[in-house]
């Protein structure tokens, strides 16, 4: 009965420089201890400039390689089918200028969108009419409705995002965090298909 080696690919690996990749860099291994370190230090791939930012190591290639080296072993794959290896340039701190630009963009964008919405649905007219219905007096600025409305707007959004600055209301992730996660998942899925050498399809453009 052959020894069984369990392999679990690491889904995302980040490298800071070009280097030689060993099996332990891209996968977790469960094996009899005598063999473990030997297998872990199996050379897998040399990262070169030509690879640019993203390399996909498919589990099939790893298994194929290990099979050749250790014909006596049985290999079992659990977990992700491939590793996405990203080569980062050194820049760790994000650009403050860029972040400020994004901040202002979101600020002005949402301010304008809500103004357009208010005019689009004639909210001020409705509030004036409502004030007239309730009190019988016609005023231009029904502040008793408008100021609570503004607070309600902010509170509603805070409730949605599940955050008050850094304090969160409960353990649940906010919809924004889920959306960021989903977006990353989609990107990972895309690159693990199109950057994979085993799939010879080319992306559009």
């Amino acid at each position, binding site marked *: 009965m052959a020894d069984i080696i369990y392999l679990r690919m690491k889904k995302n690996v980040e490298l800071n420089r070009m280097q030689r990749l060993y099996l332990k860099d891209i996968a977790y291994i469960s094996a009899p201890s005598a063999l473990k370190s030997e297998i872990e230090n199996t050379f897998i791939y040399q990262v070169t400039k030509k690879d640019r930012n993203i390399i996909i190591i498919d589990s099939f290639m790893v298994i194929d390689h290990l099979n050749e080296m250790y014909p006596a072993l049985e290999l079992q794959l659990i977990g992700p089918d491939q590793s996405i290896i990203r080569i980062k340039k050194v820049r760790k701190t*994000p650009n403050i200028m*860029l972040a400020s630009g*994004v901040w202002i*963009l979101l600020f002005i964008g*949402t*301010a304008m969108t809500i103004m357009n919405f208010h005019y689009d649905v004639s909210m001020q007219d409705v509030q004036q009419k*409502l004030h007239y219905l309730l*009190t019988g007096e016609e005023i231009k600025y029904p502040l008793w409705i408008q100021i609570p409305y503004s607070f309600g707007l902010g509170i509603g959004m805070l409730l*949605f995002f599940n955050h008050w600055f850094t304090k969160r209301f409960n353990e649940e992730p906010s919809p924004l965090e889920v959306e960021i996660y989903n*977006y990353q998942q989609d990107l990972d899925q895309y690159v693990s298909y199109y950057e994979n050498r085993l799939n010879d399809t080319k992306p559009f453009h």
Partner: protein
Amino acid sequence: MILNLFINILEIIIGLAAGLAVGGGFVAFLTVLGIIPRLIQLSRSAMYSQIYVVSVITGTVFGTYMSFADVNWDQPTMVLILWGAFHGVFNGMLAAALTEILNVFPIISKRIRMDDKLLWLLMAIVFGKIAGSIFQWTVFVK
């Protein structure tokens, strides 16, 4: 006097409820369109997602203030240009995200069998938007 107080409280409740509904709906819309994740990815600043939330909320409340208050400031044209440019970028992202969510591009390019000419279709829409916007503000509304 009592009636007046009662009406004021009623108005406060109506206003607050309306605000909650609009605020929740507004950010739900923004989140579904995925503009914020895209911006975070472009600027590689995932650790700042909290301050972007603050930006969205303060922006919306500021916009509400401007909708209902009768104020005016004496600002130079430069501020207007910047304001318009930022508004344009945001609106562009909104429009693009909306077409993307509705799968307009994949479907139309499959239909007319132009999968490989996707970028040309994209450019057509971009220039169409620019031309349409300029036409509207310079000719159509006059």
